[in-house]
């Protein structure tokens, strides 16, 4: 069951889309971070996340750099879904090799994300 999810995304529009999808998980708390550095802060502050949804392309610290640091510390077991854009398959492969559990490409449809969430947290 999803109780606390960290969404690492610097786009407000995307953030609203995530909020729409997660209306289907009314008991789930969403925490947002705008880049990998903020995400590391949130991991330390909030702890016990069930899932991280991680955009690869962000300023300051992108998703791949965040994954690299995250895997080396106590948060490496939290499942991660990486989010990339069409045409960036190499970034996706690198993210999966770095330990992400799944991926989805932008622009994603809500049903696609819902299906992926079911598979990842099953």
């Amino acid at each position, binding site marked *: 069951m999803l109780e606390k999810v960290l969404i690492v995304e610097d786009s407000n529009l995307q953030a609203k889309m995530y909020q729409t999808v997660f209306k289907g998980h009314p008991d789930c708390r969403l925490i947002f971070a705008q880049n990998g550095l903020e995400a590391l802060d949130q991991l330390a502050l909030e702890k016990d996340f069930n899932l991280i949804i991680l955009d690869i392309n962000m300023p300051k610290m992108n998703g791949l*750099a965040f994954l690299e640091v995250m895997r080396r510390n106590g948060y490496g077991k939290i499942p991660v879904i990486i989010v990339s854009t069409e045409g960036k398959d190499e970034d996706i492969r690198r993210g999966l090799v770095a330990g992400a559990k799944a991926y989805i490409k932008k622009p994603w449809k809500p049903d696609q994300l819902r299906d992926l969430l079911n598979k990842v947290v099953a």
Partner: protein
Amino acid sequence: MEKEKKITLPAYGLAEDIIAPPAPVQEKSTSPEDQAEPDAVRKYVIFFLGQEEYGLLISEVQEINRVNRITRVPNASAHIKGVINIRGKILPVIDLKKGLNLGETEIGKESRIVVVERGVRPLGLLVDRISQVLTIAENQMEKKLNDTKIAQGFIRGLAKLEGTRLVILLNYQEILGKMLKKA
């Protein structure tokens, strides 16, 4: 010979359907940089000590934490700020500014502790604030200045970035060796 065709990934999917399971995180090797190729690129965590920017290889950084509670240790050397408790592990925290003779860190809301690996025991480095993660090519690094070698001891080199921006890239093993000797 035909080139291998790269298959475009579908719109979404699971890692287990795309790749082999990831290898476990390796122990850091003792000299990863000595055989650096000129066009090799590496990622660095860039942070501020005062107004200057410094960098550590991301492969050496275990985590980056806010500064919560640092417990002072009686009779510790001046650059040892104290110890912190991270998930039940006690880590010593070094005031990096103090250790490099750049003054003393005043802890503020942007201060962070960069946890670096040191054998089996990690160590915390107190910094003023984190700037960003940058990819820096080996050939962007200046290791000599007018025939004087600057890449020695704890300085890996100077990275020349956009405009007049310079980042001092640190060799953390040298820093730790020096600071732990002082302790």
